[in-house]
């Protein structure tokens, strides 16, 4: 054959990833191994259930990729490619690829594709990333409502449906009350000029004016709540829900650029129908005995089921479960304090009750163990430890009744080791940081995921900030945590037709926790601790460490998507177990998975394994110095 330079094709390839990164000579030879085909608008380049053995690069025109359920996954024009899912993954295709315009495509045969993958890392990596993109779509698809809008993503701006009714801070209380009646609102925003300075509610009029005998001719500023908790206009309904339950308020002014644009009330949120969490959290806080709290906590599984039916994302569902769990635990603590006071054991010493593990990360699923600890102030009286032990006994018993089994590792505030004075905690952490023993680290890594729940939050902040500052230099500890993080093998063998649970009752089951959610949590933790970050939520950690010196941004996003997808499958599975009256676990039978889930899970586990390999390649010393 003549020395034939297919200039038009070679130049085209040079403009598009990953071909642009190949040496010119390789690109030149590649052009001679392609076939050009024309696909009329509406014709299939790939079909679900059919084998495909080519990579197709769009030369002109446009294509759309839909998954087996018909959801749009990808839309691409000149320079985009399709077909890698069956080349890197497995036949038959689980996607439909259709030309949405008349399309000219360059077809690259499988053997050439694999040759390029073997010989050019940049080429191989590009298509690994492509699969991550499809995983993203899978994760998004399960989290989007049937009408296209995730309900708990509704923004504060949309919920605050009417312009705010305002009153001046120097206005008379009586006039304010008349305005509320005329306008039919249960709250007024108090402004000075454009600026929001306070809020006045029905309840304030009742409690602070009528009950207190305040003269209604006094200015509003005397009885309003100053500097109220506010929400930015782009906050989601879920964020509003969490803010309101956490701050125990029923009216949340929505501000944009410093000026109030409306008010969202708990009633508005309840109108969303979906968020019975508001009811549960509110009702739990009103219970006067443990039995009442337990009663409401028992509604959590049903709530999860509803949220799943409404296609709420796993991230949001675990946040809701966490907020209910927080409310339950907080109420149990308050009831225990009351009981101890009634028995003359008070007053309570200065202390901070902290939650650990998945609840601390806002990632609580169903059936999780209790994990908590207490920091006692150094200046607390001598018998403070006895008080805390007695308090913890009651809380643990209450949580157990509410469906949270005791921690098998005894990481609970009842354990004297886990209710210590601040100085004791400092010593404990110092030992982990300075001379970590592997076993101790495995047990202790849970303490790096902590969040203050009740009591004096300052005690927690003092400890956490001090530890975080020392972590980036703690090479041995980070080395142990790294070893732990790369040790949770994603169950990929499962997808090659083998079963993973090697023995015993889990023999034919897939573990969604150890090599899945747990592995991602461990990866995020070690990266975040190495960077000295104090955030504990796994997504927040992954996003915070993405970038130079940390995690490759596409790896971080891949892990976020993998976490979302695996968590979603796990929640759905747990919800089914709960409904069937079975013990709630993270073990799932392959028969309970749809083909789509199985394939997307496999991609998710691949993402995890790649991230583990990347982490393992860093020599700890090299990384942390």
């Amino acid at each position, binding site marked *: 054959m003549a020395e034939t330079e297919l*200039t*038009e*094709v070679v130049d085209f390839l040079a403009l598009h990833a990953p071909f642009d990164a190949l040496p010119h000579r390789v690109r030149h030879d590649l052009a*001679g191994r392609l076939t*050009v085909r*024309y696909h*009329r608008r509406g014709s299939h380049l790939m079909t679900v259930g059919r084998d495909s053995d080519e990579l197709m690069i769009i030369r002109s*025109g446009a294509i759309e990729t839909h998954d087996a359920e018909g959801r749009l996954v990808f839309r691409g024009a000149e320079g985009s490619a399709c077909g890698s899912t069956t080349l890197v993954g497995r036949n038959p295709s689980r996607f439909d690829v259709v030309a949405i315009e*008349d399309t000219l495509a360059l077809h690259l045969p499988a053997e050439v594709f694999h040759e390029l993958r073997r010989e050019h890392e940049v080429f191989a990596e590009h298509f690994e990333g492509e699969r991550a993109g499809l995983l993203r779509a899978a994760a998004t698809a399960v989290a989007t409502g049937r009408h296209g809008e995730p309900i708990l993503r509704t923004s504060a701006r949309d919920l605050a449906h009417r312009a705010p009714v305002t009153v001046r801070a120097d206005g008379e209380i009586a006039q304010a009350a008349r305005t509320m009646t005329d306008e039919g609102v249960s709250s007024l925003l108090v402004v000075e000029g454009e600026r929001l300075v306070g809020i006045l509610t029905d309840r304030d009029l009742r409690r602070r004016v009528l009950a207190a005998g305040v003269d209604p001719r006094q200015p509003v500023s005397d009885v309003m709540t100053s500097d109220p908790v506010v929400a930015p206009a782009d906050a989601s309904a879920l964020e509003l829900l969490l803010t309101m339950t956490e701050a125990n308020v029923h009216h949340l002014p929505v501000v944009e650029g410093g000026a109030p644009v409306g008010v969202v009330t708990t009633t508005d949120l309840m109108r969303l129908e979906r968020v019975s969490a508001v009811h549960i959290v509110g009702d739990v806080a009103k219970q006067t005995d443990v039995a009442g709290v337990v009663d409401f906590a028992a509604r959590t599984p049903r709530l999860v089921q509803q949220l799943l039916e409404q296609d709420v994302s796993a991230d949001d569902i675990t946040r809701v479960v966490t907020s209910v769990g927080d409310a339950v635990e907080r109420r149990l603590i308050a009831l225990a304090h009351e009981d101890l006071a009634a028995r003359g054991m008070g007053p309570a010493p200065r202390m901070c009750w902290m939650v650990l593990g998945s609840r601390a990360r806002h990632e609580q699923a169903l059936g999780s163990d209790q994990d908590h600890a207490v920091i006692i102030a150094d200046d607390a009286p001598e018998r403070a430890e006895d008080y805390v032990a007695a308090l913890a006994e009651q809380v643990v018993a209450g949580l157990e009744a509410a469906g949270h089994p005791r921690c098998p590792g005894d990481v609970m505030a009842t354990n004297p080791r886990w209710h210590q004075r601040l100085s004791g905690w400092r010593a404990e952490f110092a030992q982990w940081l300075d001379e970590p023993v592997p076993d101790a680290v495995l047990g202790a890594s849970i303490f790096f995921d902590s969040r203050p729940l009740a009591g004096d939050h300052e005690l927690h902040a003092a400890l956490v900030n001090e530890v975080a500052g020392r972590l980036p230099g703690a090479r041995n500890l980070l080395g142990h945590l790294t070893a732990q993080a790369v040790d949770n093998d994603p169950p990929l063998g499962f997808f090659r037709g083998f079963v993973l649970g090697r023995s015993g009752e889990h023999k034919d089951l897939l573990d969604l926790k150890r090599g899945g959610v747990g592995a991602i949590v461990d990866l995020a933790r070690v990266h975040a601790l190495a960077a000295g970050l104090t955030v504990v939520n796994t997504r927040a950690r992954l996003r915070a460490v993405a970038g130079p010196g940390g995690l490759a941004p596409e790896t971080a996003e891949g892990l976020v998507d993998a976490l979302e997808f695996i968590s979603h499958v796990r929640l759905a599975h747990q919800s089914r177990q709960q409904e069937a009256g079975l013990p709630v676990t993270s073990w799932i039978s392959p028969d309970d998975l749809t083909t789509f889930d199985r394939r997307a899970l496999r991609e998710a586990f691949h993402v995890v394994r790649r991230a583990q390999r990347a982490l393992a390649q860093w020599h700890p010393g090299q990384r942390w110095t």
Partner: protein
Amino acid sequence: MIWRGGARGGREARRREAAARRAPAGPLRDHLTVPTPTPGTPVAELPLLAVDLETTGLDPGRDRIVAIAWVPIDRLGVVLGGAGRLVVRPGSDVGESATLHGLTDDAVAAGVPSGEALARLLDALAGRVLLAHHAGLEAGFISAECARVFGSPFVPPSVDTMRLQRRVLEGPLGTGPEPAGGELRLAAARQRFGLPRYRAHDPLADALGCAELYLAQVAELALRSRTPLTLADVSG
């Protein structure tokens, strides 16, 4: 919309047999002894060779070929690995046309002798139908060159994308307006189908451009036909 009968296939075969008998032993006879696709061959299976020639002018009797490029089509796929491009050494000055096709006398002098170029083209064309934009001109030059080199003229069976474009533009039953001349040019025809722009007067770009245009044309014409298209439907 079949408008040519199968009888022509027999005539074409007889014509080739006669030509093969007349042709001297060598590349032309070798080429002629390989059977070409019959008129009933479905377009989906039709092997073609898209050819573009650069010449010193437009008169096959007087002007000469200076460059040849080709690319085969198998089963409606343009096989880039089969692409070829040759510069021909004709033995006379390129003259003014050098400004058009960018080949200077020096470049042409570095080319292969026209007899060898022709032999290689005929080899690539064996068993295939010639595909070109304004195929008559390409066929005329090839025939004239065959007469010069082998002493025997030869017109290969061909498909003309310019004619196909006229049919595309005229609509299903000639309902469209008479296409203006400019609309039939290769670049304009490609644009009509949203095909990418290629540089002009590079023979391989034109051969590839012609091949891609053909794929687009038969995809559109197939929609208008109640039966699968055959060679008879697209040739002539």
